[in-house]
């Protein structure tokens, strides 16, 4: 039964009394003599029109007018049907689009259930209610902002899809707080409850609608390859969120071929590890799969990519320099080998050779020379630093002001060299491009200076090796879903082609900016191919996107979440929404009015005041 927002308006129904009275008054019938009423009597007997209401019943116009009055009075009374609704007014819907929402414990999935609930919220809204719809994925997305357009909201809702990543609740809360500010808002969290604690409080009323059933889930939370002594090593960690220990088979595939199958026993609410030592030396891609039948298949599979230039091989030709060894060894991805001076260089190529002390001749490749280049003999003693190329990126964050140098070699820089630090017209540090590679020269012995004791030294080492080592490949070989991946192109690369796990190709131009690939929403292996201007592929690298989130793998829903200082519990949708129907009533009244007009003019109901004689 509908209730009324403005029941007082029903009193206007009393207007029907004057209408009927006017009709009664008008119905004082005029006496008209006829030759005989015989036929009329028979006629009315046919119609059975002798009932007391005959005078009113036969009057269509009166009925229509009373109907119009009834409809108008009803619409003024604003009837509404109470509808079950979660929220109304200014609503902010936070739709959890994290990976755990893909769990299928609620058919077809938690995300679809949440979407359905969101749709229910929409249909329970009043005409003036507005909705802000935010999909909370790795990067929260505002699908609709303070809109009351139901069609737009429904469309936005239909297009929303769960991501493979985590939900960035903090960013989402910031968006929600912005949307809810100003007026009293209701914020509805449609989630399975994987919300971190210590979230900032939200303005307005927060309601939690929770999806999912407690269920056991096994998931891989880590898979990594590292360079061991006897080749690559793999490390895997899996967790079990169930209440019982689980035994699960783990399949490892190396570059697509089945490599090993292990059985892993994971205790309840615990984790277990596997370490694989005997991986192929030339391993590029490793895939691990849990043979588990659980609601969230997303985290049962993981990939790890080994960079082709997995580690940079750096050869240090030095009689022994602790500072240099430490500084080079600290660099990530650097495999440092040391060679005594005078010994022949090994045959396999190194990415960088660092000479601590002058060699007989400079080898091809990237070389960092500390000391005199071949041919230099004069010693410079006036070593007060006169010029520092502070604008040069190689000297960024390197402070030379407190560096003191005892003596340096007097060196003439080759043509085209970039002199970075100068003393009395002679370079202390310069870099140059050679046909065979890059060259950096520090013209003084580290032991003749307090540079190694400065904070500037490791920074300088990092800057220089960063410049000397051939760029290429990717910054990281593993990324989180949605996180941007920086690509380090080779100097000759013209563009970078990225193929997603779904096979979708992307092409990034290599310009002044470092190419960044951000379409990493899906889990899997991404292939990066660098292509030069002549369309020749230069090198191919891989990076992987894995969930690796214990919180997402733990799909057990939570009954309550803490937001600010408040514990928010699951809200059953009991709040009464109001579905007002007065626009329909008013439209019906308009329609009946049109019908009355038609009846008045076409139906021969006009001019009942006078009896007209037809000629």
């Amino acid at each position: 039964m509908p209730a009324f927002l403005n029941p007082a308006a029903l009193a206007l129904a009393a207007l029907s009394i004057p209408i009927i009275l006017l009709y009664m008054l008008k119905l004082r019938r005029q006496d008209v003599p006829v030759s005989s009423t015989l036929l009329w009597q028979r006629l009315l007997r046919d119609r059975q029109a002798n009932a007391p209401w005959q005078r009113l019943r036969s009057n269509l116009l009166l009925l229509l007018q009373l109907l119009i009055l009834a409809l108008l009075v009803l619409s003024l009374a604003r009837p509404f049907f109470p509808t079950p609704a979660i929220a109304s007014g200014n609503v902010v819907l936070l739709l959890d689009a994290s990976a755990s929402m893909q769990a299928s414990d609620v058919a077809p999935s938690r995300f679809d259930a949440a979407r359905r609930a969101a749709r229910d919220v929409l249909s329970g809204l009043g005409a003036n209610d507005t909705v802000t719809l935010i999909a909370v994925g790795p990067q929260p997305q505002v699908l609709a902002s303070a809109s009351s357009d139901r069609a737009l909201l429904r469309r936005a809702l239909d297009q929303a899809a769960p991501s493979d990543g985590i939900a960035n609740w903090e960013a989402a809360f910031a968006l929600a707080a912005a949307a809810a500010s100003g007026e009293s808002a209701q914020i509805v969290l449609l989630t399975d409850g994987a919300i971190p604690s210590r979230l900032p409080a939200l303005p307005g009323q927060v309601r939690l609608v929770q999806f999912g059933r407690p269920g056991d889930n096994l998931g891989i939370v880590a898979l990594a390859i590292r360079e061991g002594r006897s080749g690559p090593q793999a490390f895997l960690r899996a967790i079990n969120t169930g209440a019982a220990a689980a035994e699960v088979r783990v399949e490892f595939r190396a570059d697509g071929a089945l490599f090993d199958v292990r059985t892993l026993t994971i205790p309840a609410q615990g984790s277990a590890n596997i370490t694989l030592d005997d991986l192929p030396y030339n391993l590029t891609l490793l895939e691990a799969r849990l043979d588990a039948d659980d609601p969230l298949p997303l985290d049962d599979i993981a990939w790890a990519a080994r960079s082709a230039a997995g580690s940079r091989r750096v050869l240090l030709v030095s009689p022994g320099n602790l500072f240099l060894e430490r500084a080079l060894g600290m660099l990530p991805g650097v495999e440092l080998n040391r060679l005594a001076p005078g010994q022949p260089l090994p045959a396999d190529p190194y990415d960088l050779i660092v000479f601590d002390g002058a060699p007989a001749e400079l080898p091809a490749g990237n070389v960092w020379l500390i000391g005199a280049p071949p041919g230099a003999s004069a010693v410079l003693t006036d070593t007060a630093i006169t010029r520092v190329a502070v604008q040069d990126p190689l000297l960024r964050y390197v402070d030379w002001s407190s560096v003191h140098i005892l003596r340096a070699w007097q060196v003439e820089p080759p043509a085209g060299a970039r002199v970075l630090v100068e003393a009395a017209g002679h370079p202390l540090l310069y870099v140059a491009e050679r046909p065979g590679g890059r060259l950096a020269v520090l013209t003084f012995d580290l032991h003749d200076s307090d540079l190694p004791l400065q904070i500037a030294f490791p920074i300088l080492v990092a800057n220089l090796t960063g410049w000397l080592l051939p760029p290429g490949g990717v910054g990281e070989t593993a990324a989180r879903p949605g996180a941007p991946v920086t690509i380090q192109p080779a100097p000759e690369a013209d563009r970078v082609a990225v193929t997603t796990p779904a096979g979708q190709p992307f092409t990034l131009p290599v310009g002044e900016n470092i190419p960044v690939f951000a379409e990493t929403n899906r889990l899997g292996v991404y292939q990066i191919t660098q292509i030069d201007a002549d369309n020749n592929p230069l090198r191919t690298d891989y990076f992987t996107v894995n969930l690796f989130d214990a919180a997402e793998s733990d799909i057990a829903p939570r009954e309550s979440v803490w937001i600010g200082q408040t514990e928010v519990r699951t809200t059953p949708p009991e709040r009464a929404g109001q579905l007002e129907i007065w626009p329909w009533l008013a439209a019906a009244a308009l329609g009946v009015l049109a019908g009355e007009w038609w009846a008045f003019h076409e139906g021969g109901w006009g001019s009942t005041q006078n009896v007209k004689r037809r000629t």
Partner: protein
Amino acid sequence: MLLEPAFLVKLESLALAAHRPRAGQMQGERRSTKRGTSVEFADYRDYARGDDLRRVDWNIYARLERPYVKLFEEEEDLAVHVLLDGSGSMDWGDGEGETRGQGEGETRRQGNKEETNKWLYARRLAAALGVIALNGGDRLTITALSHSPSAIPHPQFAARGRGHTLRMLQWLAGLPAGGTTDLNASLRAYALQGSRAGLLLLLSDLFSPGGYLDGLTALAARGHEIAILHLLSPDEIEPPLEGDLRLLDVETGEPQEVSIDGSLRDLYRRRLASWQDEIRAACRARDARYIPLITDTPLEQAVLMELRQQGVVK
């Protein structure tokens, strides 16, 4: 004058048509059921003792040696009964000012110059028929059925021979209409009167609360050859009424409340048509002729065409 002289001349050539020969009372121009003295041969029959020897056909006797009597047609007069329904409902329709002053006279006259008054029309029709009957030497009886049939004898005019034409016309011109007529009772009474059976023409609107069928049956049983001339005025065919009205019956004064709209008018038309069909069927069952006439039909056309088509005059 009820009839114009030119029309009277046209009526000279007409005669009332009776389809059944019947015995008359006086020598006339109608074939009789009796055998008689005219020159038209009718039949032979065996001679019987006492027959007039002058009627024996001697030629046959010579040939067959048996006496046969030759019969001839007898021509006698026809009794023509004209019954005028003089009830109040007949005094209706636009036309010559009538006695009923109910204040609605101006509405009844407006816009229509034609005289569609049923009573006037009925009297003019009766006059025309009477002239034809008198011209044909038939026995004419005109009776006005009005008022209470038992209390007052109906005004009646009876004559034979064209010498009475003027008197008949004067009598008709002074004939009033009014009151209530129980058509059934009046017709039954007329049937029982014992007057000679003949051609009976009933001029009425048949708006009789008591009905007319029993009377019609009684008349048919009496042996009359009946023709009903059903007179209706145009506003009875198409009532020019609209809206919420109280209809007053001019005959009975009985009120009837009615709200008239397009659909009800349609219903009225259908009801009228079915009523006429009822009458036509009832007439056919009693071997009577039914001739509906609308009073806006010119009298000449009614007599010279409609009645002739229906075989009432020839």
